[in-house]
């Protein structure tokens, strides 16, 4: 494998609160090659957003205890002075967010907000920055971009706003784009358009992409690798095929079963994962998933399973034996789909 673009080593992000220590991210490690697309999947509160806000340097050290390493292009971002991190943020790593309705400033014109990003990192005139903003709006497929640039966010539809956010994020040709639930707030038809757009621009700008989502269905077509997170830890990591057709973790099975399928004519109900994600202050001992796991064993309640590779870079954190996993996968999970 080539030199990774981003390598996260044993990252923990703990928030001290009045109720106790919130272990939002509790020791995750992964790496991302240049131009690769990584999907990060998990329920709300699994630590997926927090870990990437930390990569962006948007979680402050006075709010949280951050440990581990975030190595981006050979530099540990966690050790960078704030000023240098600011030069990377928005220029070499950029991020788009879940709700395009509230992520743009309501009082500034869309074009101004994009050219502000350009002018923060490049020494260009207002006019040049504005032209770049219009050009970016054109690239993300906004019709009449020169007129649209002069409009305010409230004059844009949700999908158009997310396109504008993408235009802003890519305006400095970053090496890494982090998309935090980019389609969650959008209509289903618009979701596909936005994901296709991210795919296309990723090729054009030659950027690596991280798509954070709670919906395995969303990342299916668009990701090279997938990391499944639960209660602040990575429970499974693998290529797209490994996760969809050869998953080795009961939590991932649960996620796969709960995807709604249009091609299924049976009147079968969806299979939600029973129970709720644990409180991050009081994570169950052993495997955090054990209270909800249908295959729970005694060892699961006392010992935390390590994220161990089974083959290549497919890894899962589960005490079940590989044989058991293969059997359950074949008989119970795949049989249904």
């Amino acid at each position: 494998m080539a030199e990774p673009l981003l390598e996260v080593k044993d990252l923990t992000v703990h928030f001290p609160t009045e109720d106790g220590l919130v272990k939002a991210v509790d020791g995750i490690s992964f790496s991302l090659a240049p131009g690769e697309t990584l999907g990060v999947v998990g329920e709300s509160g699994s630590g997926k957003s927090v870990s990437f806000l930390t990569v962006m340097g948007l979680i402050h050290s006075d709010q949280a205890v951050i440990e581990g390493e975030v190595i981006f292009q050979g530099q540990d971002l966690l050790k960078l002075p704030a000023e240098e991190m600011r030069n990377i943020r928005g220029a070499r790593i950029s991020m788009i967010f879940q709700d395009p309705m509230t992520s743009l400033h309501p009082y500034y014109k869309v074009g101004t907000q994009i050219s502000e990003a350009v002018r923060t990192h490049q020494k260009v005139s207002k006019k040049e920055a504005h032209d770049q903003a219009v050009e970016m709006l054109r690239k993300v497929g906004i019709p009449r971009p020169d007129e649209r640039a002069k409009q305010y966010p409230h004059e844009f539809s949700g999908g158009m706003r997310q396109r504008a956010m993408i235009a802003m994020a890519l305006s400095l040709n970053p090496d890494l784009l982090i998309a935090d639930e980019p389609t969650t707030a959008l209509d289903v038809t618009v979701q596909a358009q936005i994901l296709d757009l991210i795919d296309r621009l990723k090729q054009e700008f030659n950027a690596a992409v991280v798509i954070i989502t709670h919906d395995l269905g969303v990342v299916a077509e668009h990701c090279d690798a997938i990391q499944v997170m639960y209660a602040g830890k990575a429970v499974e990591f693998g290529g797209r095929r490994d996760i969809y057709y050869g998953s080795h973790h009961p939590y991932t099975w649960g996620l796969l079963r709960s995807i709604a399928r249009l091609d299924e004519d049976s009147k079968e109900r969806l299979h939600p994962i029973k129970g709720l994600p644990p409180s991050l202050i009081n994570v169950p001992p052993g495997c955090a998933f054990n209270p909800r796991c249908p295959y729970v064993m005694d060892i699961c309640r006392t010992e935390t399973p390590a994220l161990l590779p089974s083959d290549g870079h497919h890894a899962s954190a589960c005490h079940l034996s590989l044989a058991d996993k293969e059997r359950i996968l074949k008989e119970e999970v795949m049989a249904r789909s």
Partner: protein
Amino acid sequence: MGRYLIRRTLFMVLVLFIVSLFTFIIFMKLPAGDPARRLAGSRATTPQELQAIRHSIGLDEPLLVQYGRFAKGLIPWPGFFLNKQVYFSWANNVPVSEEIYSRLPYTITLSLGAAAVFLVVGIPIGIISAIKRRSFVDRAGMVFALIGVSAPVFWLAYLMLYFFWFKLGWLPGIGVPAGEPILKSIALGRFILPWFALAFTFAAFYTRMIRGNLIETMSEDYIRTARAKGLSERRVIFKHGLRAALTPVVTMFGLDLATLLGGAVITETVFNIPGIGQYTLQAIFGGNFPGVMGVTVLAAFFIVIANLVVDVLYAFLDPRVRYT
């Protein structure tokens, strides 16, 4: 916008009409007893004298005719507006318009000065408190705000007089002589204590409001976007945060300034400033209805105008607001 302004103006006229009607009823009709008797005061009066008073101010006419006369005097047209035949002081025959015109500069000076003080004090403390949340500076700012909103103006005014005039002798004490040119009074520092006494409560209130607004704004998604762009924290706060946090303050400021222009009764009384507020008090206690009517409608006028100005201003401050 044009149609909107016409509609709002008509509405303003309606509001002022209602205010004047209620003022008339409350003052002329509701108090028990004879208005003429009240006007005569403690002097022993014969029935003939009372009748003469009644006749001289038109109390012997039907109520509607009486109100109509006052209402006509509120029509902003030369010859009608505050005409001296109706709007004169029942106590000393001085026209109400003369009183208002001579007193308004004092009230305007007091209000604008106090407004400048509370903005200059309130906004920066509010911003610093919000940015340095839970720090010592924030706590100190909030203690200041708590004292400010709880301290009554008259108490504060006397406290300040005691220290800065009586004890230290830094500033002149009570009184702005009505004969002295107002610019000279300002230059002599006669307004400094009144400005600060009047501004204190407002400053405290604005500090809290701005702190609250800014803290709320800084947790918005678009602030996270601004940070994600790599903007400096200074720019995030002052360009993106304050832009949204200060917009609602404009509304409050417009209304507060209008309220002050209607007369700061307590401050003007304590510091003996010959302004509208002092006149209001004199008119009420002197049973001088034309005076009461004049200052009440004036105060109401400031409020409705401020409301309109603020609403129109909003269309320029917030691109989402449009008037049709």
